[in-house]
């Protein structure tokens, strides 16, 4: 699984442009090659090739409608929930093709968890039930194991101290930021290898956002994290790698410091400096 020197990104080939930027990461969790996705007739992403580094945070940035959410959702096959999607290219997770015909999407999603833009704890369940529901519905019955996993997940999501006496209260009784951390705990409870985050802070106030960002920073020791964000400062603060997308194409990919201080592409620079988007 260790290939030391390896192309991380090949930019979309466009005639007259400088040759693709080459970067290397120590280990990669996802290898995405020539990925294109259509919703009906509309092509949402076009020929994207990118590798996702293990135990690092990769941020996908770009203006609305650029395909960043689609790319994220393609990593655990969530985009398939929209009817009439079509996909070309390959997505390898630790070398396994996620889209080969014998792969069950449910198994993919157990390995690749997801946190959504709007916090969505199940309204009929308590805080405790919300955390372990993934395990319960996947057949785990052992009460002691569930309790252990409940505490562990809430601790990892930095929520345990705030809710340990209120586990029987409805999940929806928490504040917005706490609800989002509850959703993170729920995702961690099934022990995925990767956590995808689709603008996890966009509905939160600055203090709650800071907590989630801190959490993301801590979680990357154990998990590979891919996040979509509208907030460039946030991408700069939390991510190790940044991918800039525009109109369905991957324009530039590299270490975050490089993308933000010395972008190779004019469009990336324009977007980061706020000239458009």
């Amino acid at each position, binding site marked *: 699984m260790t290939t030391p020197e390896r192309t991380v990104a090949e930019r979309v080939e466009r005639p007259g442009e400088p040759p693709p930027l080459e970067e290397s990461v120590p280990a990669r969790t996802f290898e995405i090659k020539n990925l294109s996705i259509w919703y009906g007739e509309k092509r949402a992403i076009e020929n994207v090739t990118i590798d996702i580094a293990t135990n690092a945070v990769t941020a996908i940035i770009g203006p609305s409608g650029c395909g960043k959410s689609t790319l994220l959702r393609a990593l655990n096959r969530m985009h398939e929930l929209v009817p009439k999607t079509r996909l070309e290219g390959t997505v390898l997770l630790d070398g396994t093709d996620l889209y080969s015909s014998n792969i069950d999407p449910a198994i993919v999603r157990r390995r690749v968890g*997801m946190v*959504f833009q709007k916090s969505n704890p*199940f309204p*009929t369940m308590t805080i405790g039930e919300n955390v372990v529901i993934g395990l319960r519905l996947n057949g785990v019955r052992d009460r002691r194991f569930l309790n252990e996993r409940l505490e562990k997940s809430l601790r990892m999501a930095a929520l345990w101290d705030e809710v340990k006496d209120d586990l029987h209260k*409805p999940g929806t009784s928490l504040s917005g930021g706490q609800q989002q951390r509850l959703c993170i705990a*729920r995702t961690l409870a099934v022990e995925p290898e990767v956590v995808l985050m689709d603008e996890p802070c966009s509905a939160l106030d600055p203090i709650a956002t800071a907590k989630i960002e801190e959490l993301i920073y801590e979680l990357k020791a154990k998990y590979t994290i891919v996040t979509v964000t509208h907030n460039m400062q946030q991408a700069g603060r939390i991510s190790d790698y940044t991918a800039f997308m525009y109109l369905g194409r991957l324009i530039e990919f590299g270490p975050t410091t490089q993308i933000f201080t010395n972008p190779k592409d004019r469009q990336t620079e324009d977007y980061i400096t706020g000239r458009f988007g």
Partner: protein
Amino acid sequence: MRFETAHHHTWRKIKSALACIIAFASGVLVISPLGLVFFYLLIHGAGSVNWDFFTKLPAPVGAVGGGMANAIVGSLELLALAGVIGIPVGVLGGVYLAEYGSARINSVVRFLADILNGIPSITWGVVVYGLIVLRFKGFSAYAGGLALALIMIPLILRTTEEVILLVPNGYREASLALGVSRWKTIVHIVLKTASKGIITGILLALARVGGETAPLLFTAFGNRFWNHSLSQPIAALPIQIFTYAISPYDDWHRQAWAGALVLVTGVFLVNIMVRIVTRGRGASVV
């Protein structure tokens, strides 16, 4: 541009007040029949609602007293039968429409269900008479339950569908993203979230068919005695009321009033139950 004159202003105020009065009067007109019916039933029926009414069989012609115990129990049995058949079919059909199904099939099914909802209830009695009563050569509780179930199914189907569609997609996605299968997501997340609305729909459907008389005339038929087998004719409150109301005996008329009062009170209680069910914790979305 010209500003409105004082005259215009007064005229607008009068129009507004007029509209308000008309709307209020219509509102009163809508509610008053309910109040009138209930008070009329109370005046005529309350005197005959006593312990005997709930515990005794109908008295023979000429004898005074007796009750409608068999009809009350019979109605409950018929509702139970109708529920056993109608609730699963209606709820699962609603799940299909809301969660699976293609847009085209759904619009056809929805259209048909709405037509079914509009079919006069006596038609269902005749249908079941032809399908079951003639074939098995006898009126029965099963036939009555089936007729009521057929009325319930489209009602439950449509409310279930509507309530399920109100469950935000975020909950489905959250569950699927945990690696939970589609079916388990529907049962444990979607239906659980929508449960209050679905229960409301079921209770209202039961209340609706609980008062149906016409479909039972050809199927359950009615019975002056206790029913000992579901394949035999069975008494039902609406049939008993009907029979007693068209009879020439004053005592039976009084009993019919009492029966109607009990039936309306029952429907009323179900509606109050619905209120209680839907209040609960504010957590649910529907």
